[in-house]
């Protein structure tokens, strides 16, 4: 503590050296003036008094110099120390390189991970006053964030006093007509002041004008910067031109800034105002839009939530909305954008921190071992008059040098890792993480690196100090040989090994749990066979296919042509592929049963006759659809087992009816079959009740095609795209992937894979470092005890008992490390519970495996030195003195 404050004071004086000098000068001048006055008042002439005072005071220049010397670093000795440290390195290059490399590894990893944490969690969103931006939505029990219906939005906007502006956005897909055919593009529909609420202005052209988002408003579009470059070559005259979206002409009015990104809308390229509402969207119970609002200055989030909840309840009562208990949700927009990755990033940061710790401890124990073997040298230095402070400085400067080089190498390493990790994130997901663009070496990561470096330097400098201050150096000169190890070394070195092992256990257990979660996630029962399935998304322009016959004809044509492709076994269509999301939700009623305010949301999918067989979904009761069941026939539906269980417990669902009221069309559907649950939602969410309607009765223009083939599904994909374009070049075809790629590309799978692999990597490094640390401790202690072992053997000790002697020491250290590590890992695992899937924090199998793995590795590491000890030749050992 004291040396540290002294160091800081010196540093401070060094930094404002001018002030130190001038203050001192002023002080001395004051002193002389006082003395002079005194002398004058005792009767001296002013001139004589002046000289007398000067004499009395002494040589000012010399005194200033002396004062300076008191407070400055002794530069020449610092340089000497550093040169000495470097010389030591050259003599022992392997040691120096190892230490620097280990440090660089720990620092690089932690700085890199911090780069991501900083970009995602610390950097504010790139909007004006981002902390006032809220995600404002409805909310119900099952889904805390439930979209708004357009009518509710208008009322919310009119009634609320908490937000200075409230806007909505919704996704949209368009078919952009290009000279080479139709190209499906992503768009977003937003209310008029959406960009103003975010505080974003177009770099070119203008924002939406007031009124352009009213029903019947003009067809205008604002382009993302990327779309402007890609489709219009970045020409300034693009503004004012028209584009053909879904066979409608839209006038381009502006281009968004290059840095603009709005993660919830993915990589939307075409932004249009909400001014034409579909039939459904005019319903109060069609929840399709997401809200954002800018909180007024004096309003807290809590107050806003209370107000919006009251409005929601009031509207619900006023319009007699039943079947849902909607209130409001108001959460910071940041939460929506980075909420998913926060636990993962914090976990990774924790992991990286542990790795850094283990690296530092490892290097510190290396330094310690070396200082141990330099005991003689130290003793000689002492005898020749080196003070303890001087010795401490000597070692400290060596530690600082390590930290400096380690930090530099670590920074380079961090840059490489950040680039590498950034590239690992797939494009689809990267568009949801605009912060990835800000990851890199910048002021924040630089400051973090410096802080980490200083910590490491402190640790490395302190270790030999502790050692020096505990031991009487003079005694060592007397003992003077490589004899018994000091008790301190044994204690400190052993403790360090235990710390390393414990940290390794924590990381291994974390990696084990995350790996198991990932495995469990990929082995969630899907209810279908994802192998040999090719999928593609199709968009049929509504202007061409507007009658029932035309769309049904298109479906028939597609299935017919695709099924006749070589190798294809069957093909089917669905409104949404499985394992994507529990969206497209329908609120159902069972006719004849009293309707309470129960939560009766089910997942709704529109599928073709061949779809469920193509997936190899198991039919458990009844039948599937027939081709004949089209819009002219009564509605039929196939439900999943979850729906049957929930609504028809103990009854036969076949022949029963379910009713819904979509878009103001009350309809009834007869249940004709029950299939085993197909996992429609994300992997980490339980299966919801689901209903399947014949696509012939619902007429979707936006659907996915699933094709089962006997061969590799990947080979089929280009053929599939070609065939679809042959059927009609106006079809928008996108997202061609195999089903397995689809599943592995989902957010749940990616996040789990990412964390499992990274923490696994950390754990592996930790295991190696930990075991190497243990090896070092044991090997060193064996080399120090050679003579003792020789004596023991000369007195008749068996080789086996020498083995036992060494292995027992290693065993104790391992056991201690394991015990501490296991306790800590349960704690650590509890804190990453949100990342675990299907496995408990205290999973005995994982912990057991970790214990066995680490135990074996430790035993292997200590076996080598034990063997060396057992092979000691007693005569040599004794003569070695």
């Amino acid at each position, binding site marked *: 503590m*004291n040396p540290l*404050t*002294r160091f800081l*004071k*010196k540093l401070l004086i060094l930094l404002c050296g001018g002030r130190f000098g001038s*203050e*001192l000068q*002023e*002080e*001395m001048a*004051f*002193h002389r*003036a*006082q*003395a002079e006055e005194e002398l004058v008042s005792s009767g001296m002439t002013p001139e004589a008094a002046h000289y007398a005072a000067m004499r*009395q*005071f*002494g*040589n*000012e220049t010399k*005194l200033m110099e*002396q*004062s300076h*010397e*008191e*407070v400055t670093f002794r530069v020449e000795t610092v340089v000497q120390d550093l040169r000495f440290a470097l010389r030591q390195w050259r003599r022992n290059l392997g040691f120096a390189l190892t230490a620097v490399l280990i440090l660089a590894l720990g620092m690089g990893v932690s700085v890199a991970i911090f780069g991501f944490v900083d970009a995602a969690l610390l950097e504010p969103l790139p909007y004006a006053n981002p902390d006032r931006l809220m995600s404002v939505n409805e909310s119900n029990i099952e889904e805390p964030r439930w979209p708004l219906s357009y009518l509710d939005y208008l009322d919310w906007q009119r009634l609320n006093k908490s937000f200075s502006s409230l806007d909505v956005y919704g996704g949209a897909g368009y078919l952009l007509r290009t000279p080479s055919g139709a190209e499906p593009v992503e768009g977003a529909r937003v209310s008029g002041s959406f960009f103003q609420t975010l505080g974003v202005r177009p770099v070119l052209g203008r924002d939406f004008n007031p009124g352009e988002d009213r029903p019947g408003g003009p067809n205008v579009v604002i382009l993302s910067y990327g779309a402007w470059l890609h489709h219009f070559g970045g020409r300034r005259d693009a503004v004012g031109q028209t584009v053909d979206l879904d066979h409608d002409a839209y006038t381009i009015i502006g281009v968004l800034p290059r840095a603009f990104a709005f993660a919830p809308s993915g990589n939307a390229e075409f932004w249009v105002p909400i001014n034409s509402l579909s039939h459904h969207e005019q319903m109060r119970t069609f929840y399709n839009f997401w809200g954002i609002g800018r909180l007024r200055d004096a309003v807290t989030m809590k107050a806003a939530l209370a107000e919006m909840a009251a409005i929601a309840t009031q509207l619900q009562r006023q319009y007699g909305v039943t079947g849902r208990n909607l209130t409001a949700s108001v959460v910071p927009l940041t939460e929506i954008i980075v909420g998913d990755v926060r636990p993962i990033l914090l976990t990774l940061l924790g992991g990286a921190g542990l790795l850094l710790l283990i690296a530092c401890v490892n290097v510190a124990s290396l330094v310690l071992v070396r200082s141990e073997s330099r005991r003689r040298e130290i003793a000689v230095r002492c005898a020749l008059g080196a003070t303890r402070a001087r010795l401490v400085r000597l070692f400290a400067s060596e530690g600082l040098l390590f930290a400096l080089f380690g930090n530099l190498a670590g920074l380079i390493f961090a840059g490489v890792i950040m680039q590498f990790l950034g590239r690992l994130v797939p494009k689809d997901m990267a568009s949801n993480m605009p912060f990835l663009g800000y990851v890199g070496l910048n002021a924040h990561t630089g400051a973090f690196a410096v802080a980490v470096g200083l910590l490491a330097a402190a640790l490395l400098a302190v270790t030999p100090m502790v050692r020096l201050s505990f031991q009487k150096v003079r005694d060592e000169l007397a003992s003077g040989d490589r004899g018994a190890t000091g008790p301190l070394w044994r204690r400190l070195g052993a403790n360090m090994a235990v710390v390393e092992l414990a940290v390794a256990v924590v990381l291994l257990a974390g990696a084990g749990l995350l790996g198991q979660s990932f495995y469990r996630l990929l082995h969630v029962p899907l209810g279908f066979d994802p192998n040999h399935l090719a999928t593609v998304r199709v968009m049929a322009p509504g202007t061409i296919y507007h009658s029932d016959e035309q769309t049904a004809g298109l479906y028939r044509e597609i299935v017919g042509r695709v099924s006749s492709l070589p190798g294809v076994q069957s093909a089917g269509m669905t409104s949404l592929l499985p394992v994507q999301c529990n969206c497209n939700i329908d609120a159902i009623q069972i006719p004849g049963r009293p309707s309470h305010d129960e939560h009766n949301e089910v997942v709704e999918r529109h599928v073709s006759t061949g779809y469920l067989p193509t997936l190899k979904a198991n039919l458990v009761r009844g039948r599937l659809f027939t081709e004949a069941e089209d819009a002219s026939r009564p509605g039929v539906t196939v439900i999943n087992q979850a729906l049957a269980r929930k609504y028809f417990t103990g009854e036969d669902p076949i022949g029963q009816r379910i009713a819904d009221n979509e878009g103001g069309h009350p309809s009834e559907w007869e249940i004709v079959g029950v299939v085993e649950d197909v996992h429609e939602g994300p992997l980490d969410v339980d299966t919801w009740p689901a209903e399947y309607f014949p696509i012939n009765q619902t007429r979707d223009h936006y659907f996915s095609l699933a094709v089962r083939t006997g061969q590799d599904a990947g080979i089929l994909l280009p053929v599939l795209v070609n065939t679809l374009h042959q059927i009609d070049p106006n079809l928008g075809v996108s997202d061609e992937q195999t089903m397995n790629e689809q599943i592995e590309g989902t957010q749940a799978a990616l996040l789990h894979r990412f964390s499992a692999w990274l923490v696994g990597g950390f754990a592996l490094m930790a295991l190696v470092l930990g075991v190497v640390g243990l090896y070092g401790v044991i090997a060193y202690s064996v080399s120090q005890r050679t003579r003792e072992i020789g004596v023991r053997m000369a007195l008749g000790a068996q080789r086996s008992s020498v083995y036992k002697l060494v292995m027992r020491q290693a065993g104790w250290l391992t056991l201690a490390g394991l015990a501490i590590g296991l306790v800590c890992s349960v704690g650590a695992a509890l804190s990453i519970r949100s990342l675990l899937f299907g496995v408990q924090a205290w999973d005995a199998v994982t912990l057991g495996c970790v214990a066995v793995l680490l135990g074996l590795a430790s035993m292997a590491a200590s076996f080598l030195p034990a063997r060396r000890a057992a092979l000691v030749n007693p005569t040599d050992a004794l003569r070695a003195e």
Partner: protein
Amino acid sequence: MSKKPDLLPGTLDLLILKTLTRTPLHGYGIALSIKRLSDDVLTVEEGSLYPALQRLLLRSWVKAEWKITETNRRARFYSLTAAGRKQLGIEESQFEQMIAAIRRVLRSAQEV
């Protein structure tokens, strides 16, 4: 000119700390105080107070503050810190031991 005895090495810090126990003083005040209390026997080369004061500041035994004197001039006043008080205790007892030891040596020399 009669030569006044030099200070024993290492005692300057002790003297400074001691004079500061009663009240904060500026450098000139410290010099004056040492001279008066020792009946003019102990005079230091007044300027050498200042390197010593820097040393004490660095070790946090005294702290300094710019204030205005009664004569309305700016001066740096030094006062004792808690750590300084502790250090004073240590140095006083060490000094006592040393003096006692020296005295014992002198006495035994007379006896022989």
